């Protein structure tokens, strides 16, 4: 059962010659073939290309070359990372079939480290959404219950990892797009410190908030992937010189002795589903058992985080999406020789963007327009300052902060898609970290009514290592309690039509 092994174990076995990358890659490609019709987690699969890369890694290892710990391990890449050998659609008609002329830095680093990119994963259009329902190519289904959403925007990566279609995947998190899908699929999702992982070649949504990061089944796997993709990149002017060594080591922690944990008061109790709150309370008790001291901290500005986020993000998005004008790449509509460039641009954008993209372009344009910019965009940026101050004060007393990642377990398709504000509430607990740029993660802590619940852990800027320490320690303790990984409790996936 190679597909149930962790990425670190697979990497070790490949390096030791106990198996080959080709064999491992084939196992996962076969699972994708079997289950992708059910889940729609992948928008594109490159079987031939993946097997070629795997064979090349095997040849290098056979020749005695020393490669990294994840060499030969298959990976899924969210469809907003530019890849020169596979389409990059961002889940949008606007970019259907588009193959970028360059690789994102993160993808280039995967290739250098010998990882095998098997395909591109589904996402909400241009990463706008919490359910993958805005993908132009149909939603991804949650492997725990295929009538329910896998979270978003990175639902494809999370579902693929949860269903063992790949051992690890890449995501990007602007307001929770790695963490919320991780929470509702029972997987691990890390949003590194802003600037910790390069954004070069990641199709921009909201540039001051976007942050690529790992999706995995274990804290250690996420850490190993973080070590491959993280670190300074001169191609990203917001990139930081952060040390990524030691993350995997931290994920092997079994004790939290001396760690000061703060419960974010604003994100507990009222408004949280009973089962979610119960698993969270149990996780708090577990943290104490592991040696941590737990207190409660108040971050009053977090009440305004959602509102600030849903102004800043559409504002940045509306200007970032201006590049899709049908002139240099992407969809062009209505160019029949009689229309002006401006008319063709408007038509291309009208045809290429889906409803949520249009909604947010309008909100962003409004929030930035003359007469309203101070009241909306400006005020939101002030709230951003207040949120950063709340974090600063909280981190004076605590090493990490915690909350449930989401207020509910995975909801059903259609439940929130007609009510934008209800959909935006999916990001309630996750947006403050994007606004403040700190490191934040979601780790599985159990089930409520048969569906996964996630624990959000937040660490100060540059202290990503603390996420892995906490995540690793609770994972080891919970797996001992459960007698195995949480995902082993997931119902058996059915093949479509079978």
């Amino acid at each position: 059962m190679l597909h149930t092994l962790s990425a670190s174990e697979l990497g070790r076995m490949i390096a030791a010659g106990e198996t080959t990358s080709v064999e491992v890659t084939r196992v996962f490609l076969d699972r994708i073939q079997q289950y992708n019709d059910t889940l729609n987690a992948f928008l594109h699969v490159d079987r031939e290309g993946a097997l070629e890369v795997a064979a090349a890694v095997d040849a290098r290892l056979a020749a005695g070359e020393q490669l990294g710990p994840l060499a030969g391990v298959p990976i899924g890449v969210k469809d907003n990372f530019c890849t020169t050998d596979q389409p990059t659609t961002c889940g949008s008609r606007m970019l259907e079939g588009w193959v970028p002329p360059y690789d994102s830095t993160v993808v280039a680093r995967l290739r250098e480290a010998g990882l095998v990119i098997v395909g591109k994963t589904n996402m909400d259009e241009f990463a706008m959404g919490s359910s993958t329902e805005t993908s132009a190519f149909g939603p991804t289904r949650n492997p725990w219950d295929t009538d329910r959403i896998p979270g978003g925007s990175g639902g494809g990566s999370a579902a693929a990892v949860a269903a063992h279609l790949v051992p690890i995947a890449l995501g990007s998190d602007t307001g929770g797009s790695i963490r919320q899908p991780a929470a509702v699929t029972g997987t691990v999702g890390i949003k590194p410190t802003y600037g910790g992982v390069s954004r070069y070649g990641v199709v921009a949504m909201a540039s001051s908030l976007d942050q690529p990061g790992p999706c995995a089944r274990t804290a250690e796997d996420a850490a190993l992937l973080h070590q491959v993709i993280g670190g300074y990149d001169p191609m990203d002017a917001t990139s930081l010189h952060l040390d990524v060594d030691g993350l995997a080591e931290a994920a092997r922690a079994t004790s939290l002795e001396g760690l000061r944990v703060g419960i974010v008061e604003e994100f507990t109790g009222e408004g949280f589903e009973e089962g979610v709150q119960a698993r969270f309370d149990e996780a708090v008790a577990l943290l104490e058992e592991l040696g941590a001291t737990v207190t409660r901290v108040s971050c009053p500005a977090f009440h305004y985080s959602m509102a600030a986020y849903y102004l800043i993000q559409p504002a940045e998005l509306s200007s970032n999406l201006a590049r899709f004008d049908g002139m240099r790449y992407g969809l062009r509509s209505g160019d029949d020789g009689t229309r002006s460039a401006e008319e063709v641009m408007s038509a291309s954008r009208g045809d290429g963007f889906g409803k949520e993209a249009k909604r947010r372009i309008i909100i962003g344009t409004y929030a930035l327009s003359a007469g309203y910019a101070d009241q909306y965009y400006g005020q939101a940026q002030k709230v951003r300052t207040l949120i950063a101050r709340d974090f600063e004060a909280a981190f004076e007393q605590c090493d990490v902060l915690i909350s449930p990642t989401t207020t509910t377990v995975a909801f059903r398709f259609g439940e929130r898609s007609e009510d934008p504000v209800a959909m935006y509430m999916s990001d309630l607990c996750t947006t403050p970290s994007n606004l403040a740029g700190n490191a934040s993660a979601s780790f599985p802590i159990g089930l409520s009514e048969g569906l996964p619940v996630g624990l959000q852990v937040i660490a100060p800027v540059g202290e990503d290592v603390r996420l892995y320490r906490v995540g690793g320690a609770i994972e080891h303790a919970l797996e001992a309690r459960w007698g195995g990984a949480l995902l082993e409790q997931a119902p058996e996936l059915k093949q479509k039509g079978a």
Partner: protein
Amino acid sequence: MAVTPDDIARLAGLARLRLSEQECAELAPEIGVILESMRRVQEVAGDDVPLTTHAVPRTNVFRDDVVRPSLTPKEALSGAPASEDGRFRVPAILGED
């Protein structure tokens, strides 16, 4: 707050986004509700609070001024909806009224 279909049409014009009359009519109440719930940002943060544009600010990020490989014209044009003589072909820009 009331957002009218005409407001939506005006904003769509600013964003170079073609919307049908029906789309404008549908979006108007939705955008109104969304903006109403986001107005909360006006309740806090007075004049004394500075703006944050970037969470982890950096200043003066330079790189050495050296020649390095870049896309070839062929690569740059690889995704173009239309091209001609090694250039992007676009609809008429001049001569509009």
